[in-house]
């Protein structure tokens, strides 16, 4: 009836997961009670859960990502403190637990932390920046988000019921085959990543289609903001490489469930094939994350320098260059497998060539500031921190791309320090810069600047104090994933790293404080104009937060930096463009299909993990039926009446009049 599931799956003898489970369940119940008591269910259901509004979905993606970042950070705290306590001592996590912690940390941070945040930014921004009212497939978009949430939920369920994989975040066979890892951990990993991978692919298809087919009048490709270019490149990589991940995991699933022999030790299986396939996805994945972050920085450098981005076409070229070359470098993750010097040479050179694209970008950002009026507000602080951190990370990355140097640093703490250097310095700093920058657009008020600066400095200093010692440890010969350590020389560096983690904790607390204080003071931080940073792209032409239809009238773009052009014209002529003739707007209706599908895929994944075949069958059929019912609906759009469109837009125009007056008075525009 319940497959392999019984009471022994509950971690009764393990205080850490048990107490964590208890607290999380308590919080969840409290939140549910609060929502019920306040009568918020209808609001949540109609405005968020079933919403097909790309902005709402983007915000939900970011919320999921932030929660998962905190979960992954908790794992990180455990790993660093455990290693510091496990020098000639057992530490506080036994191997079978510690191994799950580092596996969960990697999986969650990349796939359920960084990915949702990056997808969230793309969802929120791309239609606004392109001057359109939604993505190409709004309902499909909702399905994509909820499938990602479904995967994240499965990973977290493994904390309470059963175990998570203890193989590392990429489960290399033969270790991940049933012979060596018989538990449910790898199965949780497989189904969680598989389900969320489908969700990511859906979003990728959606954004690619939106950028290619749905730009507003006049928005030619070479007038798009660079963020849209990076989103396009990133999503093309998703479309090209996530199927590789799906296929690879499906093959490992068949090995584990049906005893097939794709990657097994024996009977003709080839574990090296898994390593190649998974990195053929895994390396582009890094660029899927970092390219949109580059887009965010491009917007910020330009806005806060009061100048157009330097070398726009060069930036576009560099983005596409990185996009293509990133699919030709995967072997640098295993130079030490002994592929031979010719193969290693090819992949070593192709990997370092990527540094040309990123190098060009760095110089272009510097020249964007040249001749500008640089304002060091919080997004700009993150961007400057990024330049410094990412350049160093790039340097160590090129070192690792040199096969003979990699032969002594592969899998070492040097490697760990390197990829945190680029992923935190690039992706996470980019995400925090972006959250600060677009928060007023999404919620209508700015974040508190003082707390933002405090958070930046704690994160920046904390990062370097945490990871510099790891570089040293790698050069001292320390490999990654050690559950205990018996080399006395490593002790001081592990201790320093823990101090860094302490500083990072202060950074996280400051971020939370920033949010709390900002919500408390939201009236004073209110963004009434819709353009709080003197922005240059079309999202700043909308009120904050934008109406669900984004634009009352489709903008007509006449050059690069669409909104900057509108602003300049308004200041020159001392008036806004004449009031347009409003027309009714058609918008897609909400749909619960994403939520239902994800509910049943979660049940399906859980049932498959525990071999509850009847439940898996029921859930699979139910998920499919959801789609069929959805396909039968007759009404998929509704009309927004002229009066509503006009009243929303007149309010926006009134705010713009005030902004125009202010801009003229300040003479900020040349």
């Amino acid at each position, binding site marked *: 009836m319940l497959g*392999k599931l019984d009471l022994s799956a509950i971690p009764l003898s393990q205080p850490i997961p048990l107490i964590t489970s208890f607290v999380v369940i308590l919080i969840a119940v409290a939140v549910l009670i609060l929502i019920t008591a306040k009568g918020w269910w209808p609001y949540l259901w109609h405005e968020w859960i079933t919403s097909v509004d790309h902005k709402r979905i983007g915000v939900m993606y970011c919320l999921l990502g932030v929660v998962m970042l905190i979960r992954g950070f908790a794992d990180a705290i455990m790993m660093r403190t455990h290693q510091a306590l496990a020098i000639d001592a057992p530490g506080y996590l*036994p*191997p*079978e*637990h510690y*191994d799950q912690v580092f*596996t969960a940390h990697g999986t969650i941070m990349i796939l359920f932390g960084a990915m949702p945040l990056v997808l969230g930014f793309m969802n929120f921004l791309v239609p606004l920046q392109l001057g359109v009212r939604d993505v190409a497939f709004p309902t499909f978009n909702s399905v994509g988000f909820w499938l990602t949430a479904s995967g994240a939920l499965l990973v977290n369920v493994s*904390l309470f019921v059963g175990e998570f994989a*203890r*193989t*590392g975040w990429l489960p*290399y066979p033969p270790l991940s085959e049933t012979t*060596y*890892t018989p538990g449910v*951990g790898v199965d949780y990993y497989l189904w969680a990543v598989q389900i969320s991978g489908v969700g990511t692919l859906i979003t990728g298809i959606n954004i690619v289609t939106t950028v290619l087919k749905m730009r507003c009048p006049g928005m030619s490709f070479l007038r798009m903001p660079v963020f849209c270019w990076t989103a396009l490149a990133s999503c093309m990589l998703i479309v090209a490489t996530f199927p590789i991940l799906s296929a690879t995991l499906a093959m490992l699933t068949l090995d584990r469930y049906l005893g097939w022999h794709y990657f097994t030790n024996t009977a003709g299986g080839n*574990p*090296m094939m898994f390593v190649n396939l998974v990195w053929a996805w895994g390396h582009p994945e890094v660029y899927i994350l970092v390219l949109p972050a580059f887009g965010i920085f491009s917007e910020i450098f330009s806005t806060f320098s009061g*100048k157009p*981005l*330097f*070398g*726009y076409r*060069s930036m576009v070229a560099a983005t596409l260059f990185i996009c293509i070359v990133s699919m030709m470098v995967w072997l640098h993750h295993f130079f*030490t497998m*002994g592929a*031979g*010097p010719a193969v290693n040479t090819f992949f*070593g*050179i192709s990997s370092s060539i990527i540094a040309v694209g990123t*190098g*060009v970008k760095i110089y*272009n950002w*510097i*020249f964007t*500031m*040249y*001749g*500008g009026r*640089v304002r060091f507000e919080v997004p700009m602080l993150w961007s*400057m921190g990024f330049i410094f951190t990412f*350049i*160093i990370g*790039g*340097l160590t990355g090129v070192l690792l791309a*040199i096969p*003979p*140097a990699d*032969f*002594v*640093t*592969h*899998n070492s703490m040097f490697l760990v320090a390197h990829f945190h250097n680029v992923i935190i310095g690039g992706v996470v700093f980019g995400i925090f810069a972006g959250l600060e920058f677009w928060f007023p657009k999404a919620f209508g008020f700015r974040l508190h600047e003082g707390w933002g600066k405090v958070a930046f400095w704690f994160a920046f200093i904390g990062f370097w104090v945490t990871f510099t010692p790891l570089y*040293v440890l790698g*050069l*001292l010969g320390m*490999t990654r994933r050690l559950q205990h350590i*018996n080399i*006395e*020389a490593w002790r*001081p560096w592990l201790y320093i790293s823990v101090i860094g983690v302490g500083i990072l904790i202060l950074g996280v607390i400051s971020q939370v404080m920033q949010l709390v204080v900002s919500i408390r003071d939201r009236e004073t931080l209110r963004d009434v104009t819709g353009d709080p940073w003197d922005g240059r792209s079309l999202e700043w032409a909308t009120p904050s937060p934008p109406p669900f239809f984004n634009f009352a009238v489709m903008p007509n773009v006449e050059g690069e930096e669409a909104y900057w052009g509108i602003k300049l014209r308004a200041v020159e002529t001392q008036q806004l463009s004449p009031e347009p003739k409003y027309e009714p707007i058609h918008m897609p209706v909400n749909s619960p299909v994403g939520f239902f599908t994800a509910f049943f895929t979660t049940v399906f994944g859980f049932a498959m993990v525990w071999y509850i075949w009847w439940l898996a069958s029921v859930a699979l059929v139910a998920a499919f039926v959801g789609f069929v019912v959805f396909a039968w609906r007759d009404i998929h759009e509704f009309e927004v009446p002229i009066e509503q469109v006009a009243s929303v837009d007149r309010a926006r125009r009134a705010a713009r009049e005030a902004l125009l007056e202010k801009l003229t008075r300040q003479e900020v525009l040349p």
Partner: protein
Amino acid sequence: MGRLQIPKGSLCRALRGALPCGLSSVGLASCSGGVLDPLGPVGAENATILIDSAVIMLAIVVPTILLAFWVAWRYRASNPRGEYLPYWSYSGRVEAVVWSIPTLTVMFLGGLIWIGSYELDPFRPLPSKVRPLEVQVVSLDWKWLFIYPQQGIATINQLVVPAATPVHFSITSASVFNAFFVPRLGSMIYAMPGMVSQLHLQADDPGQLLGISAQFSGDGFSDMQFQVKSVPAADFGAWVASVRGTGPVLDRAAYAELLQQAQRVPPSTYGGIDPQLFLAVANQQIAPGPGPQPGGPHHAGREVSTSGKD
């Protein structure tokens, strides 16, 4: 070893010496034990390439970082001396330079990658007048087996090599992936089931070194360490003589026991070997390790670990 002729000035030599000790001069770390403190020709080449490349890139990276901060500071909004150029967003000359700098750097490093990959190919024998010592390596759950086919002996978690003699390692795995790595000797390589990797290393001087697995292989991974003793050539002969003929013999039955998972295995020796054993393991004529066993300390119970949760 054909020495790499790419930049290896006295500066880099000095740096290689200075770096680990420089770090330790903070009074925190021991000066020995790392990959920048090599004891053999391969490790020395690895370290040289690592440091030379870092120096080459630092020559570009440091000015770039300084430029970034200088420009940001110079053109801060509150500085009236920074001229505001609100429309300056393209310059063909600047573009040419910003594409050229990384391209030239990468071309230079590309040459280093190309030459270095061939020079330091782990499969390539070291040039030496001394006949290499053959050692066959098998990674097991969770221990290292070293077979000396020429000497007819074998050891567990303990590698004794004669100094100033090239060693040819043939490496395979009896279960999952591992990586054979002696940081102070240089290059690592994967140990993989059903395959044999080749690695050539040499210790120039006598010394005690740390050997590890550098690829996570399961719960007992952290203890997959082995002592490496580089001894004078004469002492090596004496050591072989003391081991040979004493203690157990590594036959199929003894090997079957090694296949069982075990953690924290102390070093030991075998006085005799089955000479066909390594080939039989690599060809998988002997089935790979069985993984966790029912009732064993690390079996996952009813497929669910009773102890480990996350």
